[in-house]
C-alpha cells in the first residue's frame, strides 16, 4: 500500500498547553482570593468589582473553561492527530479555535468583574459571548470531524469516542440552556422561568461536569495513561460498555441538584435513580484506568507523571462514588447547601482534572521538545505538595459541612432551633475556612514547581512545529465486512457514531425536560403570585449583578428545621415569573425566600437592610458578608425599564393584561418612582438621609417582595 508523508501540527498543541498552564495559574489564584474572602471579608476590598459574588464565577469559569478547556484542546489536538495518523484538518480553523477561545475567556473575565452575568451557574456568560462560544465550538467540531474524515487509520480509538460525545453533548447543552431574550446589547433574560429554568439549568450544570470535566478527560486518560505507562489498556470490552453506559446515563441525573426543592417529585426520583446507576460506568472507567497499570506498579514509584495519573483516576473514583451518595435524598438533605458540595467538586477539579492535566503536561513536554524532563525530583515535590494541598483543602470543608448541617438541624428539648441565628453556624466553622485557605495556597504554590520544571524542560530541547510522520493511505471498505462486529464497524463510521451518541444523550434530555412543559400540574398556579413591580425587577437585576445567589438560596425545603428557621416551604407556583430562577446552591448566608414576609422569621425593616448593605460588620461583627457601599451612592439606571418590561412581556409575564394599562413599558417608570419614594420616605422617617433614585432602594424593594405573595391572606 502507498505510504504517505505528512506532518503533525505540534505548534497548536504547544499553544494550548501554554494556555492551560497560564489559565491554571490565573484560575487558581482567583480561587485562592475567593477562599480568602470567605475567611476574611476584608479581602473583598470594599470594591464592587472584587466582591465574592463576582469573584466566585470568575474562579469557577476560569478553572472549568479556561484551565480544563485548554487542557482538553491540547489533549485532543495532540492525540487525535496521532490516533488518526493525520494532521489537523485545517491550520486556519485550529488558530481561529485557539484565539477565539482565549478571547472568550478574556471577555468572560471582564464581564464578570463588571457584574454582567445571567446568574446561572457555569453558564453565567451573557448572550453575545454565548453566541461566540457556539461559533468557536462549531469551529472545533468542524476541525475535529474534518480530521476524522481525512484520517489514515481506519478505526476510531476509544479516546475519540469520548471526544465525539463531548463535542455533540456540550453543543446541545450549551444551546439548550442559553436560550435567552436580549433586552440590551449585552444583557438578557432566559426564556425559562422558575422550575423549568432550574431544571434546564441543572440538566446543563450537571452535564457540564459530565461532558466537559469528565468525558474529554476519560478520552485523555485512555490515550495518555497507556502511553505514559507503556502498557496496553486493561480492557477494550470494558471501555465499550462503560462508554455507552456513561453517555446514556449521565444526562438523566441533573435533577439530583434539586432534591427537596419545588421541582416535581417524579423528576427528583428520576435524578436519584440514574445517579445511583452512574456508579457502574464511572467505576468501569476508573478500573480500566487503574488496571492498565497491572504489573507495572513499580513504574509508578519512579515516575511523577504516573503518580499524578494514578491519584487523578483514584480521585475520579472517589468523586463518582460520593456524587451518587450525595444524590440519595436523605444524604442530600444533610449535604446540600453546605461546604460538602464545595469539597466534593474540588476532589474532582483538583484531583481528577488538575492532576490528570499535570500528568499529561509532564508527559507532553519531554515528548514534544524531544528531551528529558528537567527534574523528576521537582515533579515529585509538585505531586506531594499538590496532594497535601488537596487534603488540607477538602478535609476541613467536609468537617465544617457536617458541623454546620447538624447545627442547622438541631432542636432544643423544647422544640426550638438550638442555633436560631444563622451566623452562629458560620462563626463555628470559620476556622475550617482558614485551613482551607492553607490547602488552596499549597496547591496553588505547587503549580509554580511545574511551571519552572516545564519551562526548563522546554529550554533544554527543541519542539518541531511540524513533526514529520508517514502512514499508509486509508483503506476503508464502505460496507460491513463479513465477521466484522457491529461496534467494530461503528468504530470506523464517525458520522454514524456521532448520530448514535447524540441519540443516546437526547433520550435522557427529552425525558427530563419535555414532561415539564407538557404537564401543567407540574407547576400549579397560585392566584396570589403577581409579577414584580418595575422597581422590584430592577432590584432583582441588582441582586443578580452582585451575585447574591452565590451565597443565599431562595428555596425553603420542606423540613421542620427549615420552616422553623425561614418560614413556609417554597412551592413551584411561586416562581412562574422568575426569569431566571434564583434558587441558589449554597448557603454561605441564610435563605432569603421569605425575607419579605411581614412578621415572618426572616423579616427585616427597610432601615435594617440599608445599614446591613452599607456595612454588614457593623450589624454583626462576625459577619463575613462583603460591604456594598456603592449601592448607597450609585443612581439606579431606569432607562432600561421599558426594554426590561417588554422583554418580560414577550416571555409571558402578563404586563400586557389588566390591571396593567396598555403600553405599560412606557409608564412603568412612573410606578417605579412612586414605589421608590415610599421606601425612601420610610428610610428618611427613620433618620436615614437618602434619595429615592439610588440603587439600594430598588434592592430593598426586591428583598421586601420575597415570599410576600403567598403570605397574603385571602
Amino acid at each position, binding site marked *: 500500500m502507498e505510504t504517505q508523508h505528512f506532518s503533525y501540527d505540534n505548534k497548536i498543541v504547544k499553544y494550548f498547553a501554554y494556555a492551560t498552564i497560564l489559565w491554571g495559574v490565573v484560575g487558581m489564584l482567583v480561587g485562592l482570593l475567593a477562599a480568602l474572602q470567605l475567611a476574611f471579608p476584608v479581602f473583598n476590598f470594599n470594591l464592587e468589582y472584587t466582591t465574592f459574588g463576582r469573584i466566585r464565577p470568575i474562579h469557577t469559569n476560569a478553572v472549568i473553561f479556561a484551565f480544563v478547556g485548554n487542557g482538553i484542546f491540547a489533549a485532543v489536538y495532540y492525540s487525535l492527530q496521532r490516533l488518526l495518523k493525520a494532521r489537523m484538518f485545517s491550520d486556519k480553523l485550529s488558530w481561529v479555535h485557539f484565539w477565539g477561545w482565549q478571547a472568550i475567556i478574556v471577555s468572560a473575565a471582564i464581564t464578570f468583574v463588571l457584574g454582567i452575568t445571567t446568574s446561572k451557574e457555569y453558564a453565567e456568560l451573557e448572550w453575545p459571548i454565548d453566541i461566540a462560544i457556539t461559533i468557536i465550538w462549531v469551529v472545533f467540531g468542524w476541525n475535529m470531524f474534518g480530521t476524522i474524515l481525512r484520517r489514515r487509520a481506519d478505526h476510531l480509538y476509544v479516546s475519540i469516542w469520548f471526544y465525539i460525545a463531548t463535542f455533540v453533548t456540550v453543543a446541545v447543552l450549551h444551546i439548550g440552556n442559553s436560550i435567552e431574550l436580549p433586552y440590551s446589547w449585552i444583557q438578557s433574560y432566559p426564556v425559562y422561568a422558575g422550575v423549568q429554568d432550574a431544571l434546564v439549568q441543572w440538566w446543563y450544570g450537571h452535564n457540564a461536569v459530565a461532558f466537559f470535566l469528565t468525558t474529554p478527560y476519560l478520552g485523555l486518560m485512555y490515550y495518555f495513561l497507556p502511553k505514559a505507562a507503556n502498557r496496553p489498556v486493561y480492557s*477494550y*470490552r470494558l471501555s465499550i460498555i462503560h462508554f455507552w453506559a456513561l453517555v446514556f446515563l449521565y444526562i438523566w441525573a441533573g435533577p439530583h441538584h434539586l432534591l427537596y426543592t419545588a421541582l416535581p417529585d417524579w423528576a427528583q426520583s428520576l435524578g436519584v435513580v440514574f445517579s445511583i446507576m452512574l456508579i457502574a460506568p464511572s467505576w468501569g472507567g476508573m478500573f480500566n484506568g487503574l488496571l492498565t497499570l497491572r504489573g507495572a506498579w513499580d513504574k509508578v514509584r519512579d515516575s511523577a507523571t504516573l503518580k499524578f495519573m494514578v491519584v487523578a483516576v483514584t480521585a475520579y473514583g472517589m468523586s463518582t462514588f460520593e456524587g451518587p451518595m450525595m444524590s440519595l435524598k436523605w444524604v442530600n438533605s444533610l449535604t446540600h447547601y453546605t461546604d460538602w458540595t464545595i469539597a466534593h467538586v474540588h476532589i474532582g477539579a483538583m484531583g481528577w482534572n488538575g492532576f490528570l492535566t499535570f500528568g499529561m503536561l509532564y508527559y507532553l513536554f519531554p515528548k514534544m521538545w524531544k528531551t528529558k524532563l528537567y527534574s523528576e525530583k521537582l515533579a515529585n515535590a509538585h505531586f506531594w505538595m499538590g496532594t497535601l494541598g488537596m487534603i488540607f483543602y477538602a478535609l476541613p470543608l467536609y468537617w465544617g459541612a457536617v458541623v454546620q448541617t447538624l447545627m442547622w438541624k438541631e432542636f432544643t428539648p423544647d422544640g426550638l432551633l438550638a442555633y436560631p441565628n444563622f451566623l452562629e453556624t458560620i462563626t463555628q466553622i470559620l476556622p475550617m475556612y482558614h485551613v482551607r485557605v492553607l490547602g488552596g495556597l499549597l496547591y496553588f504554590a505547587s503549580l509554580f514547581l511545574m511551571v519552572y520544571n516545564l519551562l526548563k524542560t522546554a529550554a533544554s530541547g527543541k519542539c518541531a512545529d511540524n513533526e514529520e510522520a508517514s502512514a499508509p493511505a486509508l483503506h476503508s471498505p464502505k460496507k460491513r465486512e463479513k465477521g466484522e462486529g457491529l461496534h467494530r464497524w461503528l468504530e470506523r463510521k464517525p458520522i454514524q457514531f456521532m448520530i448514535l451518541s447524540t441519540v443516546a444523550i*437526547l433520550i435522557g434530555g427529552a425525558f427530563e425536560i419535555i414532561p415539564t412543559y407538557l404537564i401543567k400540574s407540574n407547576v400549579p398556579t397560585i392566584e396570589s403570585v403577581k409579577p414584580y413591580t418595575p422597581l422590584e425587577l430592577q432590584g432583582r437585576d441588582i441582586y443578580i449583578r452582585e451575585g447574591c445567589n452565590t451565597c443565599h438560596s431562595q428555596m425553603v425545603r420542606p423540613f421542620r428545621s427549615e420552616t422553623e428557621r425561614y418560614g413556609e416551604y417554597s412551592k413551584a407556583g411561586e416562581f412562574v415569573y422568575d426569569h431566571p430562577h434564583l434558587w441558589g446552591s449554597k448557603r454561605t448566608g441564610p435563605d432569603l425566600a421569605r425575607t419579605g414576609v411581614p412578621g415572618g422569621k426572616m423579616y427585616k425593616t427597610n432601615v435594617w437592610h440599608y445599614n446591613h448593605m452599607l456595612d454588614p460588620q457593623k450589624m454583626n461583627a462576625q459577619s463575613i458578608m462583603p460591604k456594598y457601599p456603592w449601592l448607597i451612592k450609585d443612581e439606579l439606571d431606569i432607562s432600561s425599564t421599558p426594554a426590561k418590561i417588554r422583554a418580560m412581556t414577550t416571555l409571558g409575564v402578563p404586563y400586557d393584561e389588566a390591571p396593567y394599562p396598555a403600553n405599560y413599558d412606557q409608564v412603568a417608570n412612573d410606578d417605579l418612582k412612586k414605589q421608590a419614594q415610599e421606601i425612601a420616605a420610610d428610610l428618611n422617617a427613620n433618620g436615614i438621609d437618602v434619595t429615592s433614585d439610588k440603587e439600594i432602594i430598588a434592592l430593598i424593594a426586591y428583598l421586601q417582595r420575597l415570599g410576600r405573595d403567598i403570605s397574603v391572606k385571602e
Partner: protein
Amino acid sequence: METFTLTFFLSTLNLLSMKLVSHYLQGISDVGFFPSISLLIFFLFFAGMVWWAFKKSNKAYFVQMESYALDEDDMDSSEINNN
C-alpha cells in the same frame, strides 16, 4: 446497524407516545412511571450492549485494540508478548 435502528426507533416512539398521552398526563399529578420507563429503556440498551461485548468472536479484535495507543516506538516487545 441493528442497535442504531433500534435506538432510533425507541426514541421516536418515546417522543410520539409522550405527545399522544400528554393530555391525559395533564390531569394527574403522579407521573412516577417516567422513572420506570426510563429504567426499562436503559436496561434493554445495556443488556444488548453487554451481550454483544461478550460475544466470543470479538476477543482477538479487543486484544489488538488494547495496544492501539502505543506506537511502535513506545513498545517494549517482550512486555507485549508476555501479556
